[in-house]
């Protein structure tokens, strides 16, 4: 059996979190930061590293099923990593190229979120990646709604969240799939103009396990932030008034360049583009508000945009 190259351990991740994540951020007190780290602390509680997989999502489903068959529950926060994916795919019928050199994997989270946090969960992936990329000195990296990470118009990373119901227990899980181009430098012809990797941008190879740990540490923080926000919502929402805490969205806004942009929108924008509009707002639940050329606004809760 081939030994996996992108090997990250929970201990490496903890060290990364303690080393650089424990400084108060976003104007939060040290005590609140500690709460956030604790809330996200289950991310990477177990990490499985493979040299090759078909799809990380499929491995995650198998992992949950096997745990059930053994009479236990899979650990929330389990991360599955693979050096390369032989059967990876993007949304719809799109290709996703996942050769050796990238960060390919999946995070397993039990579905214990309230509605708004559930809506915002996919944002945390793009936020974590964008933070990690900017930390490498690529300040122009930005998130495109919902969670693609682009650098100068080229896609560096893509993410997809899938739900899964465990067959025996009926427990619901979120499978957070991630794909980040790092040391891989060649892309299929159809992606060569639109994709880019970190090593292409920096002109050097990067320490893949260290970078993976950095991404997971930031994902742990942002998921902790989401859970912290949920706690704040519960504390200040005695009735049906709107949410008071916008920590996740505030952070997303600071990392995204989507607001104010003219976009082409579609549920499957590449195959069935629907309309052109200007992005004017993002709602507290993450929905995108766009103004059409006739001056009327539409709010979209799913789908995707391309800048134009």
């Amino acid at each position: 059996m081939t030994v996996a190259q992108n090997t990250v351990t929970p201990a490496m991740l903890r060290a990364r979190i303690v080393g650089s994540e424990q400084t108060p951020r976003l104007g939060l007190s040290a005590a609140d930061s500690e709460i956030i780290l604790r809330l996200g602390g289950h991310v990477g509680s177990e990490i499985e590293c493979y040299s090759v997989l078909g799809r990380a999502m499929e491995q995650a489903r198998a992992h949950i099923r096997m745990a059930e068959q053994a009479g236990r529950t899979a650990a929330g926060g389990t991360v599955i990593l693979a050096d390369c994916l032989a059967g990876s795919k993007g949304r719809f019928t799109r290709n996703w190229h996942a050769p050796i050199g990238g960060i390919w994997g999946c995070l397993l989270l039990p579905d214990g979120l309230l509605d708004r946090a559930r809506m915002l969960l996919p944002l945390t992936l793009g936020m974590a990646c964008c933070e990690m990329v900017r930390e490498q000195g690529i300040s122009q990296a930005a998130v495109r709604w919902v969670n693609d990470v682009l650098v100068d118009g080229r896609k560096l990373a893509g993410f997809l969240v899938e739900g899964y119901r465990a067959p025996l227990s009926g427990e619901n899980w979120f499978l957070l799939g991630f794909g980040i181009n790092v040391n891989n430098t060649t892309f299929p012809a159809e992606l060569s103009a639109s994709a880019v990797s970190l090593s292409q941008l920096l002109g050097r190879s990067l320490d893949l396990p260290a970078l993976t740990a950095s991404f997971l540490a930031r994902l742990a923080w942002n998921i902790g932030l989401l859970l912290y926000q949920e706690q704040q919502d519960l504390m200040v929402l005695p009735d049906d008034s709107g949410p008071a805490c916008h920590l996740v969205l505030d952070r997303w806004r600071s990392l995204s360049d989507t607001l104010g942009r003219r976009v082409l929108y579609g549920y499957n924008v590449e195959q069935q583009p629907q309309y052109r509009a200007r992005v004017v707002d993002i709602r507290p639940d993450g929905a995108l508000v766009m103004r059409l050329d006739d001056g009327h606004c539409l709010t979209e809760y799913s789908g995707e945009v391309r800048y134009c």
Partner: protein
Amino acid sequence: MSEQIDFDEIFARYRSDPYEYVDVRAAHTGRVALRVQEGDVVAAPSGEWDQIPGTRLFEITRERNTKPVSAKTNGTVSFLAGELEGQFVEAGTRLLTIRHPLKKKEIIEGILKEVLDLFPAPERAKYFFALDIQSRIEKKGARSIVIRPGDEIIIMSLMKRDTPVYYSGKPGVIYSVYFEPGVSVAQGAPLIGVCSEEKLPLIQKIITKVKADWDKFGSSESD
């Protein structure tokens, strides 16, 4: 679907009153400013993407945040809680009712919704059939697809989060599909209508009868 349904009674009801009465309620607490009067004709959203709001019905203000509420369906205001003008109301308070004239297609759908097992949308989201179901529909048509409880039939897509939706109703064929790929469905709105295979002829009989009765009825509404 129950055998006990009195179809004649249903037909008679639609014949005597071919309207749907849509109550519009306060979505949350607040002070109400009504913008229509009883008898006013109101328009539904329009435009290629339904981006042009329907007729403004009222505004509701809470903590200096004013929210306009527009008609989601066309029709006539048949009831207006005029005494609530300028008053502070609770969430759920009925403010007005729109009498919406039903077209033949809507009547057929309305009757079918009474006799089919409806499977509702769990969240406001966009929906599409699971790949396996979709390929079977493309080959054979939805009405030949038998689904059973526990089957993964539909994918719910929300904020780039795709969640399988498992069927939980009675076994049967997918008779009606109420969603379109790429179009948002409100929480609780039906996604599909299902009936058992042996009752398919009965459903067809209902549709034939409605169409025949409609023509005899001689309504000016068209489908």
